[in-house]
């Protein structure tokens, strides 16, 4: 891909992270009154709304987590690629191949977690 297309993709995924990331942050930090820490509320495994498992069980929230995973993976790998390109002074095929492989692994592993947690009863 040309550099200008990659930068456009970087900005689009950045906006995606803003949208999906806001939902992720809101479910963790803004769904409970502040009597307890989030360790006692939203970071519990189950048994209250917006704990870890109920978030994955909700199809819309699980889809938003997948959107966040996808956008963040592309944004992070492309960001690292552009920083390494600045440091080295030119685009290197081995750097791009390595980051692509890491990105594919993160996508597959993260999607597996979302699907398993969504189906866990």
């Amino acid at each position, binding site marked *: 891909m040309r550099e200008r297309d990659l*930068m456009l993709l970087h*900005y689009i995924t*950045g906006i995606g*992270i*803003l949208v999906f*990331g806001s939902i992720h942050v809101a479910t963790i*930090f803004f769904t409970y009154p*502040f009597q*307890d*820490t*989030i*360790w006692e509320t939203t*970071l519990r*495994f*189950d048994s209250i709304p917006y704990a*870890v498992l109920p978030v994955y069980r909700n199809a819309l929230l699980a889809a938003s987590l997948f959107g966040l*995973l996808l956008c*963040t*993976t592309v944004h*992070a*790998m492309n*960001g*690292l690629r552009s*920083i390494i390109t*600045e*440091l*080295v*002074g*030119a685009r*290197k095929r*081995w*750097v791009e191949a390595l980051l692509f492989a*890491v990105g594919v692994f*993160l996508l597959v*592993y*993260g999607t*597996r*977690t979302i699907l*398993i*947690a969504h*189906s*866990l*009863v």
Partner: protein
Amino acid sequence: MLARGVSRSSVIQSLKVMLIPGRYGLERWSYVLQRVSGVVVSLYFIAHVLETGNFVGGITVWSVPDYSFAERAYEETVKLLKNPIFDAGLAVVGFLVALHTINGIRLVLAHFGFSLGRPRRPEPFSPPPSFSSKQRALFWLSISLAVFALLYTLDSLMKVFRP
């Protein structure tokens, strides 16, 4: 191992130039902060994907496990992570994410020509013009929100500012 045509010293030199803004202006500081926060948050993201994968049983599990098995795996992961050092690290990540987000929005606006201000002729014997006032305001907004995110995350995890 580096690619052909790239020496280790030239990469170290580039790293020094990238990371030490020295006497340059705010613009250069925002450049450095954007890159440092991007790298740290990317590393956190990789760790976060691996760590959340643990709560359904880790990398060896590829089908839906027992509820009790997953619950036990999650509790063990939480036991490992619930400590002041991890909490402080997460607060720093909150700081960097907020900084990267608002500064990133500033960069996108600048890239598409918004909030750049009118071009000015360089004045002799005075430093070259840097940020426009809107760009400067957005940079300081990113710093302010980042500090707020740091304190808020710390309080959410450790009740620092509540009885």
